[in-house]
Every structure is written in structure tokens, then in C-alpha cells.
């Protein structure tokens, strides 16, 4: 990261800035709180730089506009929040099947249903296990600061293009609404060539992008190739952060805003002499399970903190070794676990050891 000027930016705006920095010139979206600043930013900025902002008639239309733009090889994106993202599930499954790269932002709010507009992490499963039909994965990034809202948006474009796969930035209402200093990236973003894109069949045979594969065995092979690709992603793109896990007796695992809250709790615990560490998955798919496996060879207590009723905790359980204990603390429906509450759980489970 360059040592440029720090500027105070709202999380949602940082996403818009990151997208433009990444070379995204085509935004398609439909308003929904708490991410309206993204379409608003794009509607203001894109026309200035020769891009196009289209307010789609719905999230269904948004994702399909993105699908179309992406098929032509340009970088494009959409953003929404939980109910709107649910409406995109068919389109996301198609894009995964068609291997189309694009970036989808989910500034998660609380559900189920209309729920509310407060922050939540209730869409982890949907993002990570595949809310649409069929065997596929999105690449899922979980920023935890406004700087990362910017950085992850750029990274999402890069990963999406590298793996020809839709990538999702899974933020939440707090990250979308808060302001923090960020430093903009100075180096140019490199857009890869896209020899698969539809550009008109000039001087080459016609190309098709499709997910319907009717010939015997064709769809199975395609699925196996997709799985192969996901394994590649798992091999190369796992990212996570750690804080004082080296000597930790208990490790708190949390992503996004929960990790920020947990960080405060962990610091307090450390300051009171408890050997506690923090493990933050930065990529949710690929999930840093291997690292958890390694950690759990030594650490026998994990506390997973989420703003939901327990979703990532399943992936933690799937990965830690059999004799490690995995505790969970979460609050659903827009309630935010406080640092104090997390601290109390740390103390509780630390003692239980």
C-alpha cells in the first residue's frame, strides 16, 4: 500500500471508489438501505469518467445487467443488501455456471424477511454455501474497516477476473455507514486480457457463453472443472489476519465487524493477563480452515463471535481438530454483540478450560 494522503471516507463510498479505481465503469443497481450511498456515488461519479450508471428496475435486473456486461469482458458490479441479494440468487448461479466474473456487494442488514436496516452477519451461509441452486461457490471477502471496503473491492475485481467467477464483498450496515481514514491506491490496477469474452465474432469463430450442457456427461465434466477451480482458489487465495495467537490459550474467531468488536474484547482480556488471540478470516470462501486446523493442534478453545445465530461457527467446527472446544456467542436481528459481552464470554470459556 502506498503512503498517500489519508482521507476520511464512508464505507459505502469507499466501495464506489475502489470499484472505479479497479476500472469498473459499469454499475447496475437498485436502491436499498443501508447501501444507498453506493448507487448514489456511482450515479454521481461514473458519468464524469465516461462510465454508465443504470438504476435497474430490480435486483433481478441488476444482476442480469451485470451478467451481460461481464460477458463482454468489462468490469462491472452491482450492490445491494440482504433481501435484494436473495433476489439475485438465480443470476449468481448462472454466472458461476457460465464462469462470468463480476463483483457483487452485500451490505448485510438484519433479517429474515424485511427485518430491519441494522447491521447483521446473517447472510454468511447464503454467501458461502451458495444461496442459489447447484454446486458452485462465490469468492467471498469480508472487510473489517473502511480501508478494506476499498481494498477488497479492488481485490474482488482481480480475483473475479483471475478465476472467472463472481466475487462478493460481504460487508454490513456498520461498515457501510461508518467513516474512517483510507489511503487510496496509487499503482494502476491491471486488468487481465479476456480471451473468452463476447466481442463480436470479427476474425474468429463465434463464441457462446452458456450454462446449459445437455450432452451426456458434459455437465458433470463442467462441474468437475468448476470444483477444480474452487480448489485452486482454496490453494492460492486464502487470507486471514491474526492477533496474538502465538501463545493464546483461547482464540476468538470472527469476521468483519464482529472481528473489530472481538479485537477490543481481546485487547481487554490481554491487558488483564489472559492469553487470548484473535483469528479473522478475510476470505470466507476460500475459508482459512487449514490454518485453523494447525492452530487447533495447540489451542483447545475457540470462541466464535458473529452477528447472527451461528453460521461461520460451522466452518470453524468443520476445521478444528476433534478435541478442541468451539464456543459460540452471537446476537441476531441487528443486535450487536458488545466488546464487554465478548470479553465476558472470553473469561467464561477461558476458565472452563
Amino acid at each position, binding site marked *: 500500500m502506498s503512503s498517500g494522503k489519508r482521507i476520511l471516507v464512508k464505507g459505502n463510498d469507499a466501495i464506489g471508489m475502489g470499484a472505479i479505481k479497479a476500472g469498473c*465503469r*459499469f454499475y*447496475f443497481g437498485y436502491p436499498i438501505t443501508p447501501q444507498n450511498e453506493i448507487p448514489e456515488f456511482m450515479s454521481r461519479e461514473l458519468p464524469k469518467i465516461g462510465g*454508465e450508471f*443504470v438504476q*435497474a*428496475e*430490480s435486483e*433481478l*435486473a*441488476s444482476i*442480469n*445487467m*451485470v*451478467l*451481460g*456486461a*461481464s*460477458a*463482454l469482458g*468489462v468490469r*462491472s458490479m452491482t450492490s445491494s443488501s440482504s433481501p435484494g441479494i436473495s433476489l439475485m440468487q*438465480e*443470476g449468481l448461479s*448462472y454466472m458461476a455456471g*457460465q464462469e462470468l466474473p463480476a463483483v457483487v456487494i452485500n451490505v448485510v442488514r438484519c433479517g429474515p424477511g424485511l427485518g430491519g436496516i441494522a447491521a447483521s452477519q446473517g447472510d454468511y451461509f447464503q454467501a458461502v454455501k451458495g444461496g442459489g441452486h447447484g454446486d458452485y461457490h462465490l469468492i467471498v471477502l469480508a472487510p473489517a474497516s473502511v480501508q478494506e471496503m476499498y481494498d477488497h473491492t479492488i481485490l474482488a475485481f482481480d480475483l473475479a477476473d483471475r478465476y472467472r467467477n463472481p466475487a462478493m464483498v460481504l460487508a454490513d450496515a456498520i461498515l457501510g455507514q461508518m467513516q474512517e481514514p483510507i489511503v487510496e491506491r496509487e499503482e494502476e490496477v491491471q486488468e487481465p486480457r479476456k480471451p473468452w469474452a*463476447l*466481442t*463480436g*465474432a*470479427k*476474425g474468429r469463430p*463465434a*463464441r*457462446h*457463453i*452458456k*450454462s*446449459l450442457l445437455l450432452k451426456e456427461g458434459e455437465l458433470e465434466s463442467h462441474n468437475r472443472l468448476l470444483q477444480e477451480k474452487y480448489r485452486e482458489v482454496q490453494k492460492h487465495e486464502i487470507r486471514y489476519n491474526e492477533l496474538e495467537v502465538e501463545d493464546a490459550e483461547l482464540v476468538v474467531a470472527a469476521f468483519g465487524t464482529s472481528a473489530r468488536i472481538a479485537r477490543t474484547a481481546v485487547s481487554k482480556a490481554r491487558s488483564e493477563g489472559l492469553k487470548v488471540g484473535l483469528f479473522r478470516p478475510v476470505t470466507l470462501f476460500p475459508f482459512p480452515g487449514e490454518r485453523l486446523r494447525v492452530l487447533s493442534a495447540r489451542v483447545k478453545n475457540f470462541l466464535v463471535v458473529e452477528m447472527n445465530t451461528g453460521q461461520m461457527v460451522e466452518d470453524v467446527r468443520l476445521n478444528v481438530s476433534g478435541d478442541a472446544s468451539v464456543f459460540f456467542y452471537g446476537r441476531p436481528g441487528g443486535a450487536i454483540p458488545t466488546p464487554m459481552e465478548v470479553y465476558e464470554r472470553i473469561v467464561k470459556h477461558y476458565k472452563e478450560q
Partner: protein
Amino acid sequence: MKPVFSKPKALNDAVMHYCPGCGHGVVHRLVGEALDHFDILDRTVGVAPVGCAVLMYDYFNCDIIEAPHGRPPAVATGMKRSRPDLIIFAYQGDGDLASIGLAEIVHAANRGENVTVIFVNNTVYGMTGGQMAPTTLLGQQTTTSPYGRNLNTDGYPIRMAEMLATLEGTSYVARHAIDTPANILRARKSIFRAFEMQVKDMGFSFVELLTTCPTNWGMSSRESIRRIKEELIPYFPLGVFKEKEVADYI
């Protein structure tokens, strides 16, 4: 002797999977002729629907993408906005366009997207085995209107061309029938005009084609052609409903 009628270069030689007498083939040819005529094959991207025409990428020599059921107009919008130099056409059936994709077609039309939509109305869901479509005629039996379409429970057959013509955003709207040679030639002219609108940046163009589905109508090809004249055209009148002379664009 020289050939005076050949397959357009826009189409390849594959045997099409359509049933005998199915109207899709003729419509494919007319679209292909338009691509040839304007010499735009190598800068055209087609959007295939989900419906019997989903396999159209096996027949056209231009780039083609498959859109989710009903969403071709949104996909086409995403394309045209990002590459206005390309010619984008969407090809849709009546289930695709008039039922599940109604919001997308109306809004693309209303935004005046500079794309061409070819709408194949065969009054039935061909691909899935002949269920009722929004365009199914009153009284028509289908697998989901086994007692005939009933206006009390199923509503009226919807007239898309007329509806879209009322929108300010549409530049060209026409309906033709794929039955007699004369009507096919009229359809051809309209399809050419629709692509011409796009080539000239004149905005949204839409051609509805009344076609046969002998398989799901339970008729011979011959009877199907007759049905177009006797039953379809009386309810779905033919003609050019709208034709802007100049683009609205400022």
C-alpha cells in the same frame, strides 16, 4: 444458374432441433438475413432465451449468450451500455418475455435501450411441454389449462406489441405472422427495419412474430399455419404499431 435464395451467412449448417413445421426456424433465418444485410455479423451479440430457442447458439454464427429465463432484456441492457458499438439483439419466447420477464422487457423498452428484441409468440410454452402462456387464446387447451383458457381464472391473452407501443421509450414496434410467404416477407422487412433502427442509434426496436408450435398445439404443420390466420391474427392484429422518424436522444 445462380442461387437466388440461399441460407444466410449468419447461420451455420447444423440441423436445427426444432420440431417439423416449427416457426422458430423461419425467424432464425430472417434474423440471419438481417445480420447479413447490414453486414454486422461480426459485431453482433445475440441473447438467447430459455425456451425452445435456448439452443440458438448452435445455429448462429455470431457471439451469443444464454440469459436466465425472462431476463434477456436486462442482459442486453448490460451489454449495450458497456459496448454501444456492438449490435445486441435479444430473442425471446412468449413465456420468457410476456410472463416471467415482463418487468425486464417493459423497463428496457421504457429506458429506450438501443437494442433489438425479436419476440416469438406461439401462444404456448413450447420447451416445457405446452403449458399455458400469457398469450394463450381464450378457450385454448394447454397442459395447464386443460379445460381451455378461462378468463375468470386465467385472464386475457396479453398483447405485447400494443402495450410496448404505448411506452414513450420505444422507437419501433411491429407484429407479423410467420404463416404465408407474403406475411413472412413483411416480417422480414420489419426485422430488417428493427436492426436498422439499432444501427442508426434510433433506440428500442421490437418485432413480435406469431409462429406455430405444431407439437404443443397438437396439430400438423399445415393445420398450425391455418390456425395462425384463423385464430391468432384476429386477436393479435398485424402491422407496424410505432415507428419513430428521429431518435429522441438529445
